[in-house]
């Protein structure tokens, strides 16, 4: 559907070069089921969860020309900072149709001025087909260049620096470098930052045997601009031998523990609690958000920036 008449933005854009989430605390993924709860929240100083509460949306869900979906987001934006998290950009491969996609992202960014913009270090599109999932790239020099090219098209198109997220790995593909090397190289050469998804990292460590702490220690704190946490589930057939990135359960204790380690390495970062299925009452998600905020409040290291 074509984008229609997005409105002139009343918000100040962040400077183009900065990673802009320093002042953000713990955020929540914005779900349609919770819009009334969110709109009923007091804003700013009056908000019991503190000034740091913010909301993240999947950017492509707002590829609509008009109507209530955009209007709800406008209402939320009046009181809260937003993060736009893309899931359909296919940064890793097939960039031919990306300009049209990015044009829609840019129109939304221009209106809503999100503090953070992110995408995934994966592929999802080839030969005119969109495989609506986040497929991992092989960690080869060839794939790295393809990813960097995609990030470049995206960042040029939106006119902002973006963050790219580490994938969930269920098996190992033949590679020429490990994932931290791959992501750091992509960030250094493209100028993007990194979104470290702690749940993805935990899942990958359990599924493929990598050392999650060693992984975190290879990432320069200066590149990190956001952290995700979420719930996962065991595979229905293989059980805990294969953990699935379901976003359908509360955050696991192992993920909370790994978050604590990540914050000790990266310092204070915006932390997002994701939940995309089996959506509980808003109050339950706010309890997880407040727990994440407590982790941030106890984080004494403020980062290297």
């Amino acid at each position, binding site marked *: *559907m*074509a984008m*229609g*008449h997005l409105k002139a933005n009343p918000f100040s854009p962040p400077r183009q070069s900065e990673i802009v989430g320093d002042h953000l605390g713990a955020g929540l993924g914005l779900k349609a089921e919770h819009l009334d709860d969110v709109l009923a929240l007091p804003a700013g100083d009056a908000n019991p969860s503190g000034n740091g509460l913010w909301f993240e949306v999947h950017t*492509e*869900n707002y*590829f*609509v*020309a*008009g*109507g*209530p*979906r955009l*209007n709800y987001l406008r209402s939320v934006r009046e009181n809260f900072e937003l993060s736009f998290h893309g899931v*359909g*950009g*296919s940064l890793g*491969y*097939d960039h031919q*149709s990306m300009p049209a*996609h990015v044009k829609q992202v840019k129109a939304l960014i221009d209106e809503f001025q999100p503090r953070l913009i992110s995408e995934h270090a994966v*592929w*999802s*599109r*080839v*030969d*005119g*087909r*969109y*495989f*609506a*999932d*986040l*497929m991992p*790239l*092989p960690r*080869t020099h*060839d*794939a790295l260049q*393809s990813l960097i090219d995609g990030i470049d098209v995206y960042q040029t198109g939106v006119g902002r620096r973006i963050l790219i997220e580490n994938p969930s790995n*269920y*098996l*190992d*593909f*033949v590679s020429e470098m490990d994932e931290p090397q791959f992501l750091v190289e992509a960030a250094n050469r493209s100028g993007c930052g990194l979104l470290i998804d702690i749940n993805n990292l935990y899942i990958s460590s359990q*599924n493929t045997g990598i050392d999650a702490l060693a992984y975190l220690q290879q990432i320069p704190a200066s590149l990190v601009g956001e952290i995700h946490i979420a719930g996962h589930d065991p*595979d229905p057939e*293989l059980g805990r031998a*294969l953990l*699935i990135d379901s976003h359908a359960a509360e955050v696991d204790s192992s993920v909370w523990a790994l978050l604590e380690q990540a914050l000790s390495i990266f310092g204070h970062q915006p932390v997002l609690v994701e939940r995309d299925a089996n959506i509980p009452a808003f109050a339950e998600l706010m309890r997880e958000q407040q727990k994440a905020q407590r982790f941030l409040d106890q984080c004494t290291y403020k980062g290297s920036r």
Partner: protein
Amino acid sequence: MAVDDYIAAFAHYLRTGDANRMHDFCVNPEHIKRMAVYRNGFYKGCIDALSANFPMCEKLVGNESFRNAAHIYVDHYPPEKGTLVGYGQNFSGFIADFFSGLVTNESQALPVNIADLAHLDYAWLTSLMSADSEQVLRGEHVAWLVAQGHDLALVEVRLSPSVILCDVGASAFSQWLSLKTNQKEDEQGNSASTNDLVMFWRRQGAVQARSLSVPEAALMRALQRVDSTLDSGFAAALEVDPDFDVSDIFSACLQNELLETDMTQYRPESDLI
């Protein structure tokens, strides 16, 4: 290893379920079956989107039948854009073929009106997500035009972006409405309708729907044309029903914000209401 070869093999697996070409790229051949997580995720995302976009169809045929049909639809019409918003543009034609056995060679009982219900579901969705109207023709505009001596009949008008006209069989709309409202068809008061044109529009963020009478349908179809005027719209309605009350329908159009006009043609923007 060339990324092109890896992606081609991965995409082949996603399309067909055949993972043989992925063996060269997997470190542990025993783990290759884990790739099913990606394929399942792809289908689940698409089928969930179709379920959200065609809720009355799903309600009519049941969750299992719907998901079976949707799975095959994904094979025939995979998403092309990097979003599932609006996915299912070809679903109404497909689902009729599916239930008549044209797609699967397994003829199933064809639910009455299934294609029409899909049309109505998609029209509702299209209206919901359409652009907001920026040039709504309002009563105060009409009063001003008349006061300034403009011939109202010659004012160029068009339908607002959220107005979607949907041709369906005679009983489809009442069936769709009864599914949506969880009421029996005879409680809707529309079951005897012979109208085959349903109009969807959005007002104050909510999608409205009603079946149109023959002259109303003629009016709306005329107003869909480029460069239409109130005169050409009313003429089309009066042609099929000389007794049609155009002033009533015009008032209803204004109240429901169905019409747009470019008022800057008649006065400078700074002077607009």
